[in-house]
């Protein structure tokens, strides 16, 4: 029998609290769940516990406790353009995550196809030329719960994303300190987290060498002016601006320069998208080429009104939200109240950088009482606009359809 750490299996305690009967099967919410939110996922299950039990985190939507999957409550995005660290979403693959990190002994190795292998301390990193960059971190599967037909995986609402001001050093400067040997083709990244079974595929990701050296990919030791929460990768994580979060390796302690393409599971098999427009295929479709998931695409959201909400009628209905261009800046945000026949340009907030959330605002004058369906769409700086029809793929990746809210004006 393959060995694995039986000490990790929980003791056979049995918590029966806030039990609810679901189709005859009793399903319990944890004793420490404060309340329940409904993500509005088609077909359900849509309800999630809100938990305040995780270290350095306020109330978060609980998708899974071990290994942690914590979603940002959506009202957080109405508070400002930067997502507070204690509400930033959390996503880990394997559950063997250190609960303690000693920052005085932490080292980042730089090795492989380099002239000089390095072992950098955090002091070394702090003393290197420093950069700041605002960038959105979004899970590849953010909004997967809204796919139709539904797909297996983390059943996120729209809250597996966040925006932060990242402070750190350029990956390029770290690589140049080691000296990249000619023939290098990629750089691979590993963190402190480990598989919980022998031979399980350790979570490692890689970038092409040109991308790694582009001067924007960075190693961050602060987010929003504070050290990283443990669950968001303390003391150091990779920042890949404009690319999906799967590359943003947390607790980064190993940088390996490769002289051959990376064939590890997490690049060659996992996190791949159809090489089709909008990474979209039809359910059951086969025979299409795939590539590793990469750049993000434009998205926009209402943040001051929620779907199915009732809003008091008045002279005006203020509307506001956030948008991001994906891998470039926001050009326009527009709102429609007539199913997309006409669009009204919204006012954009302060530009915090090409990779950041951008706030938008507008208003409707004298909305009539009754049902009102509103849509919002973003066009990015490359002219890419959100599609009117949702994409579909078996993994539930890269959703960016025009968002819609149905309101009742009363």
């Amino acid at each position, binding site marked *: 029998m393959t060995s694995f750490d039986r000490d990790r299996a*929980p003791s056979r305690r049995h918590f029966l609290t806030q039990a609810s009967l679901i189709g005859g099967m009793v399903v319990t919410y944890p004793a420490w769940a404060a309340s329940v939110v409904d993500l509005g996922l088609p077909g359900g299950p849509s309800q999630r516990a809100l938990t305040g039990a995780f270290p350095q985190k306020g109330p978060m939507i609980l998708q*899974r406790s071990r290994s942690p999957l914590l979603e940002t409550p959506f009202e957080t995005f109405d508070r400002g353009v930067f997502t507070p660290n204690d509400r930033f979403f959390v996503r880990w693959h394997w*559950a063997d*995550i250190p609960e*303690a*990190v000693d920052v*005085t002994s932490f080292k980042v190795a730089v090795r492989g196809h380099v002239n000089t292998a390095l072992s950098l301390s*955090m002091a070394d990193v702090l003393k290197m030329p420093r950069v700041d960059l605002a960038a959105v971190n979004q899970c590849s599967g953010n909004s997967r719960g809204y796919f139709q037909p539904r797909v297996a995986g983390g059943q996120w609402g729209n809250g597996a994303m966040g925006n932060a001001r990242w402070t750190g050093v350029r990956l390029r400067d770290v690589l140049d300190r080691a000296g990249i040997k000619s023939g290098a083709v990629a750089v691979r990244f590993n963190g402190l987290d480990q598989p919980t079974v022998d031979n399980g595929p350790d979570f490692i990701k890689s970038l092409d060498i040109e991308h790694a050296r582009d001067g924007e990919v960075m190693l961050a030791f602060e987010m929003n002016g504070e*050290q990283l929460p443990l669950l968001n990768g303390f003391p150091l994580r990779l920042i890949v601006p404009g690319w999906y979060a799967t590359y943003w390796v947390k607790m980064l302690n190993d940088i390996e320069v490769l002289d051959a393409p990376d064939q590890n599971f997490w690049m060659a098999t996992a996190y791949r998208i159809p090489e089709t427009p909008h990474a979209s295929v039809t359910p059951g479709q086969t025979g299409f080429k795939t590539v590793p998931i990469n750049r993000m695409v434009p998205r926009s959201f209402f943040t001051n009104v929620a779907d199915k909400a009732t809003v008091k009628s008045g002279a005006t209905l203020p509307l506001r939200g956030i948008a991001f261009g994906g891998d470039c800046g926001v050009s326009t945000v527009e709102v429609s109240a007539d199913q997309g026949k006409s669009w009204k340009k919204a006012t954009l907030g302060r530009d915090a950088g090409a990779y950041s959330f951008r706030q938008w605002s507008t208003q409707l004058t004298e909305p009539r009482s009754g049902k009102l369906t509103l849509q919002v769409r973003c066009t990015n700086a490359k002219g890419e606009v959100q599609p009117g029809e949702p994409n579909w793929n078996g993994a539930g990746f890269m959703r960016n359809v025009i968002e819609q809210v149905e309101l009742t004006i009363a």
Partner: protein
Amino acid sequence: MSPTGKRIVGICTFLLALGAFAGLDTRPISAAEKSTVTASGVTLHSVSTKFPDPGRLFPGGSSADAINNNCLACHSTGMVFTQPKMSRAEWQAEVNKMRNTYKAPVADADVPAIVDYLANLTVGK
């Protein structure tokens, strides 16, 4: 360094080590003394914490034995209960993925009971 000098350094180091053991400070390290790194205007503080895990089991008594004995070693129950309604074949594929891709050490004999349990899940609210 001269051989004599090296011997002096060696003896001093040995005595220092002896002294350290003799006067061992057994007070727990306070948060203030906990290790930090400061450079170029930034201080990073070491972190020590605990992740919550109430150890929920899959409910259902003996029909849940196989899934409880095998699956909770790696992950909690949460994500299983948030999945949409899936067919038996789809759940079989998930279990296959756990064994083949993620190397879950599930005995062949346990697989049917695990797939039965998952296929019989009723999707909640």
